[in-house]
């Protein structure tokens, strides 16, 4: 069970400052949501925290330890990320078997076949998918493979970038139930990006609203149904989501 803290994270690309300075804390075992405008920097926060991007300022700590100081192997078993674009994260010429077995091999885990079969079952895919390649899967099936890969090392902290937006609601329900169960049983900590406030309300304890690289407000989930946000953009976003759920 590990807490995640993001302290004064900032990054720029060329002359554009995408994150001026972002700070927030996720308690050990908490599910914390990140919502906000498309292009506001949500994925960038996750990519910095997982060190996919390295040229950022500030500090990210997991269980008090700066991620930059963790040895690679330890970091992989502490922190995993599910990407927004499943295509980008799966190598086109690697079969699903090699996608799932590689982390197991690197970390010297035994019972690989059983673990791979279990990981696929957890995300609702049949075991014969191990011999397929990413282009032979539908969009949602690829996303489920990406989730299975992130879970297979049982990391303490999971960064989830729109994990279910490519999935139909029935598969989404299975994945959300799985994530909730893992959190209950093993006290995983989640940082979850979503555009769907119903998913945030269902999964998260608290969430941050981002606009143009800044967190404009952090709210408890109970603030959603009656729209208790103070920041204008957060009010607008929650208001639009409430209308959207009732009628367009």
């Amino acid at each position, binding site marked *: 069970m590990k807490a995640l803290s993001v302290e004064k994270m900032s990054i720029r*690309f060329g002359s*554009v400052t995408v994150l001026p300075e972002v700070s927030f804390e996720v308690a050990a075992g908490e599910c914390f949501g990140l*919502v*906000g*405008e*498309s*292009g506001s920097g*949500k*994925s960038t926060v996750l990519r910095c925290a997982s060190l996919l991007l390295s040229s950022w300022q500030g500090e990210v700590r997991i269980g008090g330890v700066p991620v930059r100081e963790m040895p690679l192997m330890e970091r992989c078993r502490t922190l995993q990320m599910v990407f*927004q*674009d*499943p*295509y*980008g994260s799966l190598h086109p010429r690697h079969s699903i078997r090699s996608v799932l077995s590689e982390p197991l091999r690197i970390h010297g885990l035994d019972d690989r076949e059983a673990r791979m079969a279990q990981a696929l079952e957890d995300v609702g895919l049949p075991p014969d998918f191990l011999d397929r390649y990413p282009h*032979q*899967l*539908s*969009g*949602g*099936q690829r996303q*489920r493979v990406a989730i299975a890969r992130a879970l297979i090392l049982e990391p303490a902290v999971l960064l989830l*970038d*729109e994990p279910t*937006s*490519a*999935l*139909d*609601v*029935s*598969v*989404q*329900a*299975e994945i*959300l*139930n799985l994530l*909730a*169960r893992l959190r209950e049983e093993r006290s995983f900590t989640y940082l979850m990006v979503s*555009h*769907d*406030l*119903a*998913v945030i*309300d*269902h999964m998260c304890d608290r969430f941050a609203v981002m606009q*143009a690289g800044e967190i404009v407000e952090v709210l408890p989930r109970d603030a*959603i*149904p009656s729209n208790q946000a103070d920041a204008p953009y957060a009010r*607008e*976003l929650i208001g*639009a*989501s*409430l209308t*959207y*759920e009732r*009628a*367009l």
Partner: protein
Amino acid sequence: MSHPILDVAGLTVRYPGAAQPAVRGVSFQLGRERLGIVGESGSGKSTVGRALMRLLPGAEVSAERMRFEEVDLTAATERQMLKIRGARMSMILQDPKFSLNPIRRCGLQIEEAYRTHVRSSRAEARARALAMLEAVQIRDPERVYDLYPHEVSGGMGQRVMIAMMLLTDPDLVIADEPTSALDVTVRLQVLKILDDLVREKGIGLIMISHDLNLVRNFCDRVLIMYAGRVVETLAARDLDRAQHPYTRGLLAAQPRIGGKRAPLPVLQREAAWNEDREEMA
């Protein structure tokens, strides 16, 4: 339907080496309307779209009938398709970042797609592309124009794709999960653009989506797909009164704002749903 834009009967698609066809006997017509397709992940929705666009090299595609306006899509040559695809019928693909060329700037790709089908100067194409990016609510179109696909966010990539596909004024737009990565405010604005095209220009729109709220409120009719078949066709506003157990299961599985935080009901799939049945579409 007197003059449908699209008329499909008995569409079946089998991928090489697959035991079962991915799409089995799908029939429907599309007028100047918004037709939603919903269904389980892997049920064949994108495959239907790609079959209509004739973008399935290697797969076995058969149909009793597959017409787009005056074009017989079962018989059209690739040369004819090159003229039609992207000009008169466009598909907004599900994985925009994968579908865009990774080594060309986003704006240039929109500009080129336009110039492939419409005679115009580069400056004119650029101006149109920038205006379209602005219309889809891209905050800083000039900057985004010069970015490579890996440098734009998920939702920006979707909007680049939408801009590219709408710029040529197609008569038929197949939108495969076009707004899944957009925040609700921007999503409503993008839907408004598509809506205006249907109302004002009379295009036909196929909207493949997992978002039941979107389909219920935005579309006119909905096809529900399960395991390669259309299992139910409904007026979108009647979605909540769906009869098929699969559709009912879908509705129940949706989390709701202010709902119980108990585990969500999941589908108990039944073999019977795969069986042949009378289909109306």
